[in-house]
């Protein structure tokens, strides 16, 4: 462990200190390092395990079918039906916009883009949006849709802001999935006389489906939990009682309409924490958090499961 200054350059010419046969001290250091590194792995599992256990215990007696299926209440335990509905609604609405644009963008980046200024500008934009804080993306949505376009707090404004926020991830995951398709598949298709677009549509995209679906589900998990983007775009009010038989998409009273405020489950947790005063606040938040974590776990397992099944089915045939 002596003479450690400077970086270790070529592997064929190690420092004299390294060429010596390992001494007892360095073997002890190696053992200690191994123990410490194992410790980090164990620590992460312990933290995750205790978080899941914590919420399982906290949600015990709170989460029930009636908790999930009734309206919120200030005076009783209440439920989370409208906010859970809004979370799913926002998820679907966002993915309806983000998936086509993201996949098409991924196709360009993987199949068409050459190393030029436009491509590097797209890459820079991709990195820039990924690093802009979610709250700033939310403020952008606030100024663009809520204020300037006079939409007010609407599900559509929230979904568009969420699309902005998640488009880079969706594009990058699609690009990776498409790039993973072997070059020979493209060559074979082109050699048979198919055009470039026919090759993409009938050869590359079908082969990339498992990866694309994994990308969709990973993005979905992020959309489902996001709150900072939505605070100032789709609103933070207590949702009214929803009449699910009202299918008038242009009527803001309909839970199916994108032109209405939509407080999601994550935003609801934040709202309860900052202004909730009811006696059941802690139980409701614990229950909501447990539901949120369960959904995220489902998305994760779903992404793995579906990806694996599709890969097997598509590659075996």
């Amino acid at each position: 462990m002596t003479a450690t200054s400077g970086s270790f350059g070529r592997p064929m010419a190690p420092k004299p200190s390294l060429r010596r046969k390992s001494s007892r001290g360095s073997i002890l250091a190696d053992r200690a390092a191994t123990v410490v590194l194992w410790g980090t792995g164990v620590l992460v599992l312990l933290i995750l395990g205790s978080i899941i256990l914590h919420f399982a215990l906290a949600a015990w007696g709170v989460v029930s079918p009636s908790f999930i299926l009734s309206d919120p209440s200030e005076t009783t335990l209440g439920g989370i039906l409208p906010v859970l509905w809004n979370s799913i609604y926002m998820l679907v609405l966002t993915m309806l916009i983000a998936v086509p644009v993201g996949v098409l963008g991924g196709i360009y980046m993987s199949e068409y883009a050459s190393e030029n200024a436009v491509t590097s500008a797209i890459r820079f934009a991709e990195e820039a949006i990924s690093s802009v804080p979610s709250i700033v993306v939310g403020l952008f949505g606030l100024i663009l849709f809520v204020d300037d376009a006079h939409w007010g707090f609407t599900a559509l404004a929230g979904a568009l802001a969420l699309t902005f926020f998640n488009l880079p991830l969706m594009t990058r995951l699609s690009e990776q999935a498409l790039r993973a398709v072997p070059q020979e598949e493209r060559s074979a298709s082109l050699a048979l006389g198919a055009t470039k677009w026919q090759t993409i549509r009938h050869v590359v995209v079908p082969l990339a489906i498992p990866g694309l679906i994994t990308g969709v589900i990973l993005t979905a998990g992020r959309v489902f939990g996001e709150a900072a983007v939505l605070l100032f775009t789709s609103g933070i009010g207590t949702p009214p009682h929803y009449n699910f038989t009202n299918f008038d998409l242009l009527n803001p009273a309909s839970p199916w309409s994108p032109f209405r405020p939509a407080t999601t489950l994550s935003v609801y947790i934040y709202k309860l924490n900052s202004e909730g005063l009811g006696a059941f606040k802690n139980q409701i938040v614990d229950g909501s958090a447990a539901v949120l974590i369960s959904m995220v776990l489902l998305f994760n397992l779903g992404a793995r499961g579906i990806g694996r099944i599709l890969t097997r089915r598509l590659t075996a045939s």
Partner: protein
Amino acid sequence: MAQMTTANRLTGLRARPGLLERIDVPRRVVFLAAVSMIAIVALLMAFIAWQGIQLFVKDGVSVGEIFSPTWNPLANAGPEFGLLPFIAATVCVTAVALLISTPLSVGLALFLSEVAPNWAKAVVQPSLEIFVGIPSVVWGWLGITVLVPFLADTFSGPIVISLPIAGPVFSMPGFLTGFSWMAGSLVLSIMVLPTITSVSYDAFRAVPQELRTGSLALGTTRWQMIRHLLLPSALSGVLTAVVLGMTRAAGEALAVQMVIGNSPTMPAAITQPLTTLTSQITLDMGNTVFGEPWQDALWTMSLVLLIISITSVVLVRLINKRRLAS
């Protein structure tokens, strides 16, 4: 990417395409989808910058004034818009979070890339993905219900370090309520752990296997190999990881707002409540009216956040360029 494959050459030999093929509609459509991200970024920067300068343009606050340590947007006799407490708090909370998280995350990345047998990887890696998926409001709520009471109960009295002869050498007020700089940093350190871990892990995996076997064949221990060969070789990747973690920590809003105590004061002790840029925006945006100076100051804060994040993107690019050049 312009590889000259046999197929590419063959397509070049094909007969001249017809008009529809020459316009190449699909190419244009996918190009538009990719370019939309440039439009989004340009619009976002323009709008936030425009709103962010209103404090100076419309409200007549000088640029120097925002570096004052006093935040008092409601004072009748001349409100003060010093943003320094928020900027300093963002820097301090992020710095402590990284101090806690970096050793842990890099250790974890080393564990996954060098030490862990396959079964351990198969357990730890999915766990990390679940970590990423846990929403920030849930981290904040965990902070409030578990971490904050723990800090308040355990370290309520003043924290004093004394030496036998010299007497007390260091003292700090204890956690009053538990809502504090420390709580914010601890919550953030867990939230950025997966980011730093996964980027460092990729950096370690990118080091060629031959270097490892070469080093081990020369009789070094695994730890010597990690310390003298792997860490220096992957240094720029690890730096990138830390910068990405920093960006995420500085931009995180809700979890921090929930545990930090929301007090716009200059950071002095790690036990005191603070307010970061993000938490103040989250807290105040709903209470202010569009166009009033108070809200304009919040837009200026978001412009500061935007500048921080764009700077970090450029920083990551510089780090990686150096790696490619060397």
